[in-house]
Each structure stands twice: as structure tokens, then as C-alpha cells.
């Protein structure tokens, strides 16, 4: 007889749990941990958004919406993309409301990939990209973003990886875990490489609202690119709406239609109450976003200064809510560093290696925490480093 596990499909059996989860299992057993480990905002969803959702619940607006989402929501997304980023999408045919940007990534992969198609992805990156590619039957090809390029990708990085099997490139700026952004001129160089190639761009722009000192640029803004770029975004980070599970995909009609086909069979529609909340967020939430962004910006500076004062190389992140300091000078691997830090000073940070091999030698520290918590954690990390360095001094 086969055991239950033998029934699990080969590609799922061979797929590891994410490095983050492994680390979580260790961290949750330790009491009194200060965590810099989360990938979600610390603010509650702004009240105006919650209040709108309560109203919609009271009204009993709890039925399925159309597969692509409420037309009012798609119109609001369309207006937002136009006014905020000068990008134009038809609410009727070029936008779907998804269950978080995560669903968008999944259905985009499934809509595009024929078995064996190569999908380029930029690491270090969000943990689910690679598995989504593999589950859709694609072959992930990693482009390593380098610290010396401020974790941006260069045309050379890209050209070296393109083959005749390349179907798409998945990139995410502002970046989780590095906090890197790519400006308009950086993206133009990438667009130049892609201009005459049949390669689709999947651009995860979930952190678009959280940039500091530079406004967000999308590759879809560059002439000629909108027709082959799918922009994936959502409400989780900008409006602090992680648990609402609401995102959206905007792109050329043919690809969006294909994604909609999958979406209608697997999910029917994004959560209805969340969709109403999303309309309120887009129409009236800009001030709330700006106030949260300013708060993050202050904390970002505290973190970068803190790590630099400890003598660690810390690239200045211009987006998202993470810093990604280099810990190579300690002689420890990312994972050793994080485990030791967790046991000795009870601070949870995530090993850079959880986001791809090229994240080795770095740690991801989230600053979606109160300033007091950040300062306490920085103090502990500093003490930890002093202890590490002590034997070297003798």
C-alpha cells in the first residue's frame, strides 16, 4: 500500500517549504522575542476603510461580484493608475480584482506558461515567485541583483539570461526584501533590451506607494512596454489591508482575459466586502497612505543609521519597509547569524538567503514596527555584534 504522502504530486513533494517558514518555526518557540521579521504593516487599516466595509456588511452586500470584480472598483483602479502613475487601463477589459497580488502572480504564471517555458525572476525576491513558476510548469531562471548595483538589475544581467525559451520576466520594485527601487532611467535600459523581444513583463508593484525621496516608476510607463506588461499590485501594503486579501492585475486585454478565465474557475471573485473597502481606499485613502509613508520614512532612517553605526554595510533602501544590511563581516552565514541572534538576544530577523541564494550574507529587517521597538531591537543587535567581535579584538 502507498502511504498518504506518496499520493502527493511529485512537483509538490520536491518543493521545499519557504526558508521563512522554517525560521518561523524556530522563532515561535522562543519567549520574549522582539521581531523585525514581518512583511506586513503595523498600522490598522484606516478607519474610513473599515467603516465603509461595516456599512456594506450592514447593507447585506455580501453576494458574489462579477468575476473581474465590481465595476466601480475597476473604475476606481483605472482612475488611480491614470492619476497616480499616468498609466491607462480600461476598467472593462484590462483590469481584474484578485485575491491579493499573490493570486495575480499565480494566475499570470498559469495564463502564460507552456511546459518548459523559461521565466526570468530577479532574486533576492518574495518567496512565492519561484514556486508559482514551478507549479505552472515553467522553468525559473534566476537573475541575481547585486549589492554593488544597489540591487537593481542591469541590461547585462538580463541579456545573459535570455534564451529562445524565455517567455516572461518577473520583477518587483520596490523590492521585498532589499527595499531597492528602479528609477525611470534604470527601467528604460531594461525596456531597451526587451523592446524587440517577445518577452512579457510581470511587474509586481505592491510597494509602489512606499517610496522615499523618489517617486515610483513602472516599466509599463515606458513607451512600447504597456502592451506586454502586466502590472500586479494590491491594497495590502499601501493601505495596510493585508488580511482583506485584495489585489489587482492590469495589463493587455488578451493576457488579462486569459487570467480571468483561471480566476473565474478557481475563485469566482475577490471577497466582496473587501472590494467595497478597496473603492473607499482608492477614492479617499491618499492622506492615510501619505501619513503612513512619512512614518515609515522616519523609521527607515533610524534603521539605516543604526546599522551603519554598528559598522555594518547598509545599502540605503528607497522603497518598501525593509532594510537589508550586509553581515558578511561577521564571518557567519545569514542563517547562522539569525539563529544565533535569536538565541542570544531574542531578536528575529530573516536570513537574506530565504529570498534566494544571492541574499546570502544579508539579513532582512522590517521596520513595520514602532520606533521604540526598533530602537530596542537595534540595541540588542548592537550588543550581539559587540559580543561577536570581542574574541577578534583579543
Amino acid at each position, binding site marked *: 500500500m502507498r502511504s498518504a504522502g506518496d499520493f502527493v504530486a511529485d512537483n509538490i513533494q520536491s518543493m521545499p517549504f519557504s526558508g521563512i517558514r522554517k525560521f518561523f518555526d524556530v522563532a515561535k518557540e522562543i519567549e520574549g522575542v522582539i521581531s523585525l521579521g514581518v*512583511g506586513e504593516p503595523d498600522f490598522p487599516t484606516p478607519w474610513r476603510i473599515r467603516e465603509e466595509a461595516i456599512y456594506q456588511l450592514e447593507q447585506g452586500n455580501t453576494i458574489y461580484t462579477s468575476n473581474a470584480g465590481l465595476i466601480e472598483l475597476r473604475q476606481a483602479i483605472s482612475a488611480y493608475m491614470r492619476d497616480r502613475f499616468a498609466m491607462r487601463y480600461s476598467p472593462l477589459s484590462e483590469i481584474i480584482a484578485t485575491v491579493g497580488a499573490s493570486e495575480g502572480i499565480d494566475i499570470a504564471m498559469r495564463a502564460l506558461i507552456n511546459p518548459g517555458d523559461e521565466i526570468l525572476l530577479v532574486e533576492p525576491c518574495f518567496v512565492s515567485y519561484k514556486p508559482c513558476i514551478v507549479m505552472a510548469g515553467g522553468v525559473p531562471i534566476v537573475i541575481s541583483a547585486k549589492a554593488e548595483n544597489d540591487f537593481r538589475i542591469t541590461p547585462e544581467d538580463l541579456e545573459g539570461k535570455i534564451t529562445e525559451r524565455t517567455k516572461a520576466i518577473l520583477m518587483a520594485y520596490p523590492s*521585498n526584501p532589499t527595499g531597492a527601487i528602479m528609477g525611470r532611467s534604470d527601467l528604460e535600459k531594461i525596456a531597451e533590451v526587451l523592446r524587440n523581444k517577445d518577452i512579457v513583463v510581470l511587474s509586481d508593484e505592491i510597494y509602489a506607494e512606499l517610496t522615499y525621496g523618489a517617486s515610483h516608476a513602472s516599466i509599463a510607463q515606458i513607451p512600447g512596454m504597456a502592451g506586454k506588461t502586466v502590472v500586479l499590485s494590491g491594497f495590502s501594503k499601501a493601505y495596510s489591508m493585508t488580511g482583506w486579501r485584495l489585489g489587482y492585475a492590469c495589463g493587455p486585454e488578451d493576457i488579462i482575459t486569459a487570467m480571468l478565465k483561471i480566476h473565474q474557475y478557481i475563485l469566482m471573485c475577490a471577497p466582496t466586502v473587501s472590494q467595497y473597502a478597496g473603492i473607499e481606499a482608492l477614492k479617499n485613502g491618499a492622506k492615510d497612505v501619505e501619513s503612513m509613508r512619512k512614518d515609515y520614512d522616519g523609521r527607515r532612517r533610524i534603521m539605516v543609521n543604526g546599522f551603519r553605526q554598528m559598522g555594518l554595510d547598509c545599502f540605503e533602501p528607497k522603497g518598501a519597509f525593509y532594510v537589508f544590511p550586509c553581515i558578511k563581516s561577521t564571518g557567519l552565514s545569514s542563517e547562522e547569524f539569525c539563529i544565533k541572534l535569536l538565541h542570544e538576544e531574542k531578536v528575529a530577523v530573516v536570513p537574506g538567503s530565504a529570498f534566494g541564494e544571492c541574499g546570502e550574507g544579508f539579513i532582512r529587517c522590517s521596520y513595520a514596527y514602532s520606533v521604540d521597538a526598533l530602537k530596542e531591537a537595534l540595541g540588542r543587535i548592537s550588543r550581539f555584534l559587540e559580543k561577536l567581535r570581542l574574541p577578534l579584538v583579543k
Partner: protein
Amino acid sequence: MANLREDLLALIERNSRLTPEDLAERLGVSMEEVAAELGLMVDEQIICGYHTLINWDKTSKEFVTALIEVKVTPQHGMGFDKIAQRIYLFDEVKAVYLMSGGFDLTVVIEGDNIKEVAYFISNKLAPMESVLSTATHFVLKKYKDHGIVLELPKKPDERMIISP
């Protein structure tokens, strides 16, 4: 410069205990710049004082707050300013606003008890020559003040320790 001013004010309006070091770090400017700008704003009376927001209901101190709607006759050449001044110079008057709408001045006063407030209104405020009428409302409970909910239940951070 205009931005630094606004950013500084936004931060200290919420927490006036932030030191120039804290402010400089959060705004990415030097401590000298912060100190200079704060000094200027004190000189220019943009920064008029530093308060502590206290929920007095949780202390044993007993006092009452009244909000009085006052109708007055404006004076030639002075508008409402002169009568407003005569009112706001009393120590028990905590705030005075010129209003649009059905009355002219909102006067917030505090006293140890209702009797004291009543005395002030009937013996000081109402008899003033330019005061036409008063309507007094006592504050029963403060829920939110200066943008801060006073009895916000503390919610523990229930986020997972680590998430992608």
C-alpha cells in the same frame, strides 16, 4: 525649508518630547538645522508652547469644563478682537474661537465645580457690555482630544513573528 517646517511641526504636534537628535534622524537633516528651525519657529510664535495631553478623568482631580456659545456686538474698527481679548484674558478661559454660524464666540472655560463656572458666566461674562447672550454646555466626557483617542484599548501585536 517650507517642507522641513511642516515635517517638524507634524512630528512635534504628535510628540513634543522628541529631541532635536530624534527629529534630525527621522527627517534626514542635521541636528543644527533642526535646532535652528525650531528656534526660529519659537521666535515667530509658530510654536506657542508644549502641552501634555492628560486624561483627567483618570485622576482624582475634580473640575468641570464648559463650552459657552456667546453672541456679541462687534465694535467699530476692532471687529470681534477687543471683546475676545476681554474674555480670553481671564485665567479660567482655556480657549476662545471666533465662529461662523448662529453665534460669534466659542469660549471654553474650566472651574473647580459648576458653581464656579456659573459665577464666572453670570458675574463676568454675561454682564459685559458687548455680550448679547450666552448658552452654556457642560462637557460630560472627553473621548478624543487633540487627535488622540483617550481610552484606546492597548492591542497586542498579533502579527506572526515572521512572514514573507
